[in-house]
């Protein structure tokens, strides 16, 4: 997975394997955790400047933090400080968008004097949320630079030196100074243990925060580009804008470009569970699944509370047997994967089942509002009715007879059907009676299906035209067209039933392409042993 262009969500297994090729081999273990820092650093050109800065602010953690989180953006591009100062926002973009995949030209929005990323391979260690590079100066100007207020002063200061530094082998310099930086880095922020990093790619809190900021800035830039108001630019708008700017013909929806909040892209990770003295923070740490067991503990505690309360009521004689039926329709329990994601912990099937059972038991007894709310946290709503079916309007012909027209497709046959409201069940296909057009019973059964389903067998007259496809696909196309046309004569509920029966869904199956090296789509050539 390469960063720089619009990226999709991270697949479960690091497909960053390509870039991690080096990480997998034992020799470059150090390199792995160096790399995250590196990618932030090497383009930020903060190599030299950073060192100086840190040297000067070493004892002032807050400024250091500011520098790290904010200053890197400014220091991203070399080549003159003041002239590029206003490109505060854009620097971040170029910083992060620069590690372009090998072989592809860098995005045009990069400054021509920006050095190409030397770490193209290892730069793509992690997926980066896409951040757009606004090209027009106006957009850049419009980018709010309120964030950079504090760090503006640094830019001018560092600009000159930065360019020099970059020209000379950023790589070596960066690698060298990173050792130093790492030490400093651990002071302010809860640092990840290196062992953890070896096992799996981990994202520091800093990194995530940075990604979030980049995302927000990128969002605003995108809003500007699309001519919308940055303040009210929602995730839906972002999706639409990305789909518009990067139209993709890929079938797999998850392989298409997306731009989402980093929370949704980067998997949640846990901070270190123990302090400096090695003592774990959580009392259930040694169970191995601390979040799960603490959750169970909490839930069971609530159950005991409720039962105690009920016993008290019963003792007082105020216990009422009423059980209010909770509206469980329209929501479902969390699935195991979702629970795992919530707890950031691996669960087994039995654990999950146990937990759900406990929650259900909690539901059966009467519980107060807070317990309800606790349980509702673990339920997700399920759309009761999927998207509304478009209902064709009725039209009226000369004699005042109502009719409705619609189209249907199947495989390469296109059909258009006109269903009249009152009739005797005659169907004409291309001017020919359907008995003669479809001599095979199976095709006629397909035509019968919508009417039979709605119990309107002899009540409508149909005229349809069909072209393309074969005998069976023409029958399917007409069936779809008729079902859609019938929607206008039928109640909403029945439309929903038809949808559930599959009458209103176009069959997506098309002919699979033949692949080279095979005789057909799936059939391989005859295998000969010799």
């Amino acid at each position, binding site marked *: 997975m390469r960063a720089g262009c619009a990226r999709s969500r991270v697949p479960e297994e690091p497909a960053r394997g390509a870039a991690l090729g080096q990480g997998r081999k034992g020799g470059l273990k150090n390199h792995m955790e160096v790399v995250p820092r590196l990618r932030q650093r090497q383009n930020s050109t903060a190599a030299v400047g950073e060192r100086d800065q840190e040297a000067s602010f070493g004892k002032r953690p807050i400024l250091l933090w500011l520098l790290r989180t904010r200053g890197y953006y400014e220091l991203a591009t070399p080549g003159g400080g003041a002239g590029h100062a206003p490109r505060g926002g854009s620097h971040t973009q170029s910083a992060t968008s620069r590690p372009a995949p090998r072989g592809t030209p860098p995005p045009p929005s990069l400054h021509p004097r920006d050095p190409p990323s030397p770490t193209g391979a290892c730069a793509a260690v992690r997926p980066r949320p896409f951040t757009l590079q606004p090209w027009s100066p106006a957009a850049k100007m419009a980018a709010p630079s309120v964030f950079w207020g504090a760090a503006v002063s640094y830019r001018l200061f560092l600009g000159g030196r930065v360019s020099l530094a970059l020209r000379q082998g950023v790589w070596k310099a960066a690698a060298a100074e990173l050792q130093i930086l790492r030490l400093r880095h651990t002071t302010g922020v809860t640092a990840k243990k290196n062992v953890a990093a070896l096992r799996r790619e981990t994202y520091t809190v800093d990194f995530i925060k940075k990604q979030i900021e980049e995302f927000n800035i990128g969002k605003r830039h995108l809003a500007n580009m699309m001519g919308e108001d940055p303040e009210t630019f929602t995730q839906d708008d972002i999706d639409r804008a990305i789909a518009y700017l990067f139209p993709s013909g890929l079938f797999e929806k998850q392989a298409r470009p997306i731009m989402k909040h980093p929370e949704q892209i980067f998997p949640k990770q846990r901070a270190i569970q123990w302090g400096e003295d090695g003592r774990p923070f959580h009392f259930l740490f040694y169970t191995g699944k601390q979040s799960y067991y603490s959750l169970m503990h909490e839930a069971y505690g609530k159950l005991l509370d409720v039962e105690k309360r009920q016993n008290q009521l019963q003792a007082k004689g105020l216990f009422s047997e009423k059980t209010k039926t909770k509206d469980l329709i329209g929501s479902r329990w969390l699935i195991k994967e979702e629970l795992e994601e919530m707890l950031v912990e691996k669960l087994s099937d039995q654990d999950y089942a146990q937990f759900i059972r406990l929650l259900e038991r909690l539901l059966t007894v009467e519980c107060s509002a807070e317990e309800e709310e606790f349980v509702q946290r673990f339920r997700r709503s399920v759309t009761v009715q999927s998207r509304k079916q478009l209902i064709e309007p009725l039209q009226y012909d000369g004699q005042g007879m109502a009719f409705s027209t619609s189209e249907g497709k199947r495989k390469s046959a296109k059909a258009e059907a006109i269903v009249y409201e009152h009739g005797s069940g005659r169907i004409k296909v291309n001017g020919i009676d359907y008995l*003669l057009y479809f001599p095979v019973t199976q095709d006629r*059964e397909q035509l019968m299906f919508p009417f*039979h389903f709605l119990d309107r*067998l002899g009540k409508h007259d149909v005229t349809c035209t069909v072209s393309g496809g074969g005998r069976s696909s023409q029958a399917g196309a007409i069936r779809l067209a008729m079902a859609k046309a019938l929607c206008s004569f039928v109640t909403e509920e029945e439309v929903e039933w038809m949808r559930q029966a599959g009458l209103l869904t176009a069959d997506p199956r098309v002919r699979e392409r033949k692949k080279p090296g095979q005789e057909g789509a799936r059939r391989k050539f005859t295998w000969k042993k010799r």
Partner: protein
Amino acid sequence: MDPGRLLHTGSQAPQSLAAHLDNPAPDDSPRAVSRTSEKDPVKTFSEACLMVRKPALELLHYLKNTNFAHPAVRYVLYGEKGTGKTLSLCHVIHFCAKQDWLILHVPDAHLWVKSCRGLLPSTYNKQRLDQPAEASIWLKNFKTTNERFLSQIKVQEKYVWNKRESTEKGSPLGEVVEQGITRVKNATDAVGVVLRELKGQSSLGGFRLLVAVDGVNALWGKTTLKREDKSLVAPEELALVHNLRKMVKNDWHGGTIVLTLSQTGSLFKPRKAYLPQELLGKEGFDALDPFIPILVSNYSPKEFESCIQYYLENSWLQHEKAHTEEGKKELLFLSNANPGQLERLCAHL
């Protein structure tokens, strides 16, 4: 119904015949009056019943009012595939048989123009071809159909079959038929003789002649027969066809001609063709002109209902939904009230 008579339905006619037989009176509603058993080889219901329908009734009405002094009137039953033309023809034949007519029934003329094995040069006429097998089959049927008349009708000429055999003038027709059956080589000529005699003698008024041909469009279409030198045979080169054409011409009186068009067995004709013009071709149309066309269409709702009732009464439909309203509607939709389709559908249930 005289048990001696057998009704031979054409090869395309379905095995199970539906509903109710007519007593020759009502010509309005196609409702049941009675059923009879016949010795027909219909194993399914152990009886053969016809549904009385409008086209047949119309024909019978015409038949009753024919003036036998005029030349024979031609009626052509036409309609889409599976609507019941053949069975209407059978109905008419049955009626005429009951009325004691002489029936000349060709179950399927298409059989004469395709898939024939032994084609011999005609003994009578060198240019034509004989079909001994088909001719002998037909003669056998004719014999069983019209036993009574075979002894009555006398031959009016002398026919010499070969050096040793000949039929004298005045001998009964049965002899000719026997001759054709026994000497297969002369069967076609025997058929020709029979046809000629009947044509000549029906005008005399001794009996009434009904010529019933199913699939008459075969007489004017193409054949799939080839001679030994692989050249195609035209229909008129077949002696049987030639003679039958002469029979179908309305230059005689004292009877009627009832014909049926059929696409099912026809050669080189599109599936959707059912009009006389399309199926007969120009030649046939001209030859048959003038004729009275009778359209046979799909079942009307009442007819459909009665057909289903018949099936149900005979426990032909075993599906539990068959007797419900929805089931009937389904069947109606799927078969579109086409008798042939309905029969095929019900065969599965």
